[in-house]
């Protein structure tokens, strides 16, 4: 063989094996079968994480990252989550709720879609966070550690994909109509200047109307934007490329109006999808069920629940459950965000309304009413603990009391997601919050009925204001686990796990008060957690399991479960010895179940029968 042939042949021989190595990578294929990983969602503790802000695990996807600007991408990704799974387990959380994974509008008006709520393509992963392999691997690794992963989804709207050509000139404009002086000149009251942005005009029940200086000119044409640089390109699923797939009525401005909330665009020009259309429903079910099939999520957190008509949820929830059950995944948890203080409205997404009951609804919602009426009003601003009881009493009226057919294992009344703050509200520590009050609120949340949900950074005492200030980068914390609040949260998680009655037990309120001053019981709230018969029957909990939780929201002094001659009564027999799982003094139940428990300011006690005490927590 000629010498000059040797090198090329040797090179070819060397490269041949490399070529054959280009096979399907690990995690390159969808799971062969889905698994049900949760037996009882009441035992779960959710940790909400904004992927872009938690940990930057891969440099390769740090495209257009501007970490100094709160409204831009900062570089966090799924690999970053994977790298810090131990952090979550150390904290004691059991379920990760990750921000949306779908491809988003890249940027709009100087803001990036780092949060994930500006969807452009419901079928593709957001490449800023990694690829399908990275997502599958992160979730598989999380599952290996006993963590579940919940996907954040949006069906209400898509990103800023089109504008209303109000003046029909074929370009997006910001229009000013009227001078503001016309009537003044004529002696009347001035007409305010009408400010119209064609990206996000105010709601009009007729549909956004075109107008010129001569008056209205009929429905404004919808113009889809095509700008690949900002990823304003045709939407997927394909049905959403049609203008009729959107309500086209403009931006909601009156949140008390059902018509506006359900038909209006979400502020920021997020276009409201016509979810009543069968084609659109098919697309939504398919798109999001496919994510579970592809990646093996364990639940959905559903955005903007109240901006979509009830019937959609009836249809969506049923079909998703049926489809996933056919693939082997049941007990799939779907909880939604109804950002509203109206608990009746929030609860309606689990049971429907009096006029239109729902056969199928979501398994749970974010307990916004509790966030406002309890965590803010009681624990942050020292309002009366009677608020807690009042809201508790409404729960069984407002929410469905039986599990959703084919849904999560417990009734919505047992699965409400308790949270102190999240990505849409200022953090608890912002402005008037104190660390003591925060820990006390956490104590209540971990011992109260429902699923605790921690917003990332709470355990690190983040204190950001409203969006985007409340979406801080996490990496400056160094992922330390020795902070006092971190340790506090981790301990509460251990307690909740050690005493299943804290997560599964029925609540019996034993003391509340309207008093918030120097009074003896000011700030006291006491409640028992006792087993439900069905859980005992199912051997999910011991029949004698018991916990008495006493919390004092008062910041200034210790308080007791007594006022004047009135003393708290419990369901325990006289002489029962109780010890405080938190390390405080023990008590013995008095005659008639009476018991006066005293706790310090902004602190609490978990009293359990001495025989049930778990050491070392």
């Amino acid at each position, binding site marked *: 063989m000629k010498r000059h042939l040797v090198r090329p042949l040797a090179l070819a021989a060397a490269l041949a094996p490399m070529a054959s190595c280009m096979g399907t990578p690990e995690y390159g294929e969808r799971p062969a079968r889905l698994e049900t990983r949760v037996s009882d969602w009441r035992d779960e503790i959710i940790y909400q994480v904004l992927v872009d802000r938690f940990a930057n695990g891969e440099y390769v*996807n740090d*495209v*257009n990252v501007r970490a100094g600007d709160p409204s831009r991408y900062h570089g966090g990704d799924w690999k970053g989550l994977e790298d810090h799974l131990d952090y979550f387990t150390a904290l004691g959380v059991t379920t990760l709720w990750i921000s949306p994974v779908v*491809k988003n509008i890249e940027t709009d008006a100087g803001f990036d879609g780092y949060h994930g709520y500006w969807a452009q393509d419901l079928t*593709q*992963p957001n*490449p*800023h966070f990694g*690829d399908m392999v990275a997502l599958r691997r992160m979730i598989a690794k999380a599952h290996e550690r006993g963590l579940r992963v919940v996907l954040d989804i949006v069906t209400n709207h898509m990103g800023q994909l089109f504008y209303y050509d109000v003046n029909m000139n074929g370009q997006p404009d910001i229009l000013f109509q009227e001078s503001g002086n016309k009537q003044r000149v004529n002696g009347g009251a001035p007409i305010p200047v009408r400010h119209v942005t064609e990206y996000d005009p105010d709601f009009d029940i007729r549909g956004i109307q075109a107008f010129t200086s001569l008056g209205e000119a009929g429905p404004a044409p919808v113009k*889809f*934007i*095509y*700008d*690949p*640089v900002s*990823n304003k*390109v*045709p939407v997927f699923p394909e049905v959403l490329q049609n203008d009729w797939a959107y309500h086209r009525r403009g931006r909601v401005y009156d949140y008390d109006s059902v018509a506006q909330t359900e038909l209006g665009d979400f502020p920021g020009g997020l276009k409201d999808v016509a979810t009543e259309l069968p084609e659109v429903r098919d697309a939504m079910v398919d798109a999001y069920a496919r994510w579970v099939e592809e990646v093996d999520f364990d639940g959905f957190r559903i955005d903007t629940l109240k901006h979509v008509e009830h019937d959609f949820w009836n249809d969506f929830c049923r079909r998703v459950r049926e489809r996933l059950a056919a693939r082997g995944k049941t007990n799939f948890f779907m909880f939604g965000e109804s950002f509203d203080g109206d608990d009746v409205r929030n609860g309606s997404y689990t049971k429907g309304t009096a006029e239109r009951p729902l056969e199928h609804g979501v398994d749970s919602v974010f307990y916004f009413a509790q966030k406002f009426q309890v965590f803010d009003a009681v624990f942050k601003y020292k309002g009366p603990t009677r608020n807690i009881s009042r809201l508790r009493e409404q729960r069984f009226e407002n929410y469905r009391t039986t599990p959703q057919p084919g849904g999560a294992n417990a009734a919505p009344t047992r699965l409400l997601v308790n949270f102190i703050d999240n990505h849409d509200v200022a953090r608890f520590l912002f402005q008037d919050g104190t660390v003591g009050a925060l820990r006390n609120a956490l104590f209540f949340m971990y011992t109260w009925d429902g699923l605790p949900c921690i917003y990332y950074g709470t355990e690190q005492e983040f204190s950001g204001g409203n969006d985007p200030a409340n979406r801080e980068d996490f990496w400056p914390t160094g992922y330390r686990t020795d902070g006092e609040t971190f340790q506090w949260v981790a301990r509460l998680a251990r307690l909740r796990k050690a005493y299943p009655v804290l997560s599964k037990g029925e609540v019996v309120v034993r003391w509340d008060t309207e008093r918030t001053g120097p009074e003896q019981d000011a700030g006291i709230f006491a409640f028992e957690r006792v087993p439900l018969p069905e859980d005992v029957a199912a051997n999910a909990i011991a029949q004698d399991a018991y916990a008495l939780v006493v919390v004092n929201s008062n910041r200034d002094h210790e308080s007791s479960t007594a006022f004047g001659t009135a003393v708290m009564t419990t369901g325990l027999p006289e002489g029962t010895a109780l010890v405080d799982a938190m390390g405080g003094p023990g008590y013995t139940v008095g005659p008639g179940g009476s018991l006066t428990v005293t706790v310090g300011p902004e602190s609490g006690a978990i009293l359990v029968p001495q025989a049930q005490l778990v050491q070392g927590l």
Partner: protein
Amino acid sequence: MLRAVLRLACRVRPLLATAFTLTWLGGVAFAQTPAPPPGGSDPSQNGPPAPPPGSVVGPTTPPLQTNPLDPRTPVGPPEAPPAAGPPGSGAPAPAPAPPAAAPPAPVNQPIVKPTPGHTGQFEFGSYGRATPALDGRGGPGRNADIVAFGTRLDEDNYAELEFRRADDWTTEKDPTPITSRIVATLAVTDPLFHYTGKFDATLALRNLFIEEKGIGHPGLALWVGSRMYRGDDIYLLNWWPLDNLNTLGGGARLELPSRTKLAVHAGVVRLDDPFQYQAVARPLPYNQLGATRVAIFDRPRVISSFRAEQIFPLEGTAGIKVVGYGELHHVAKGVREREPAVYEQMPSDGGFVAGLQVGAFAGQRDTFVNLFFRYARGLAAYGDFTAPYELADDRTSSGAHEVRVAMSANWEGGPFTVLAGGYVRSFRTAAPNDLSFQNVDEAALVVRPHYYFTDKVGVFVEGTAETQQRAVLFEGQGRPVQGTMFRAGVAPFLSPAGKGSYRRPQIRAIYLFSVRDRDARSFYPADDPFARRSTEHFVGLSCEWWFNSSYL
């Protein structure tokens, strides 16, 4: 019957456009003839390459784009250098100048000898001009012509630097002369660093080709590359009125002992214009971040040309030169995007040129006269460097046409020489509009007599008449606007190379006075000084050179 023939012609036109390319691929053997000298177009003139008329017209001389008044074009057309040699004159410029007749001196000694008997050398040639000038009012001297091709006394600065490798591959074993040359021509134009202080330059590669001659037939030359491709010019107008193409392509030229020259060529031009090209942003595949630009519409114009030239010798060194010339232009159909997701079919398009040149030359001292006639239709009417504008309703250039009739001449006797050039041109766009600023009729005549006080020192005067009519009504008066301009200049000069209209280098002092009428002023936009002033002065110095550049 006639219609059937026309339909057939339309169908085969695109094929013909490329047919010329294939013509020379079949290499034919012909009898051998020595290569003509680089200069003049008269093969009988061995010597001195006729001074390139330096001239330099825009590479394209597109019908309107070169017009400084065209609002879409910055004043000052892109320069097109004189290709190489003298052609200019079209006339066989038999200038006897001995120095010029000498073969170019090698810049370097042969460097390589790949085959026994092979010789080769690097060569350098150049054309250039520089004109520092003021307008007598404190402003810069500025080209003031109102027609596409007027006097060049007020031309912009321009230079070409030609680097050439020339090899002679003749061997003792095979004495058939076989030569090759590799030509790279770098051109630079305004703005110049020393004027703006901005360390930058406007550069273009005007030539980049290889030509091989003598393989198969001693008179056969084949070339491939990017090339200025042109015939005879009108020096005074800096214009090649019959043939001037700039393409990326190839061609063949055959010179026969019968003083016949045949040339075919085919090349492509793809302008960055929506008529030919559109790149749009598209997302990257496989969910990659970002976007890229994709050429969704890209249709080069294929231009083929044919040129046949015959010299008929007269008494002595004189002769008659006749040139027949034709071009075919074609672009394929395509689809372009008018707005996102809205597409527009663009049909195929084409055009042709038919031209004739008749000239006579004395064979002494560059005395000659040339007459040109050229008709272009369709795509070809817009020139190779101009994308069609004002299209017909079918989005083609069908219906556009241009007619050129031009003349150039030079006479030299004793201490006197006289150069003259002129033309009449009519251009219509494809749009069937009665009124269009782009529809133009124009004419220009330039005469430049020289007087030489000594062999090296002389003076010339120059008179220019320019008129242009455009198909728009003059300020509501119901008549087409027709601007007229008269220009007169005087320029004492130094000519180290001796007497002759085409002798260079030359250094001059120039004064040029111009008068424009009201219609001519109306060609300019508001606040342009030329819109306000009826007279212009141009006071400056000028230098111009050419030597040793390639010509054909």
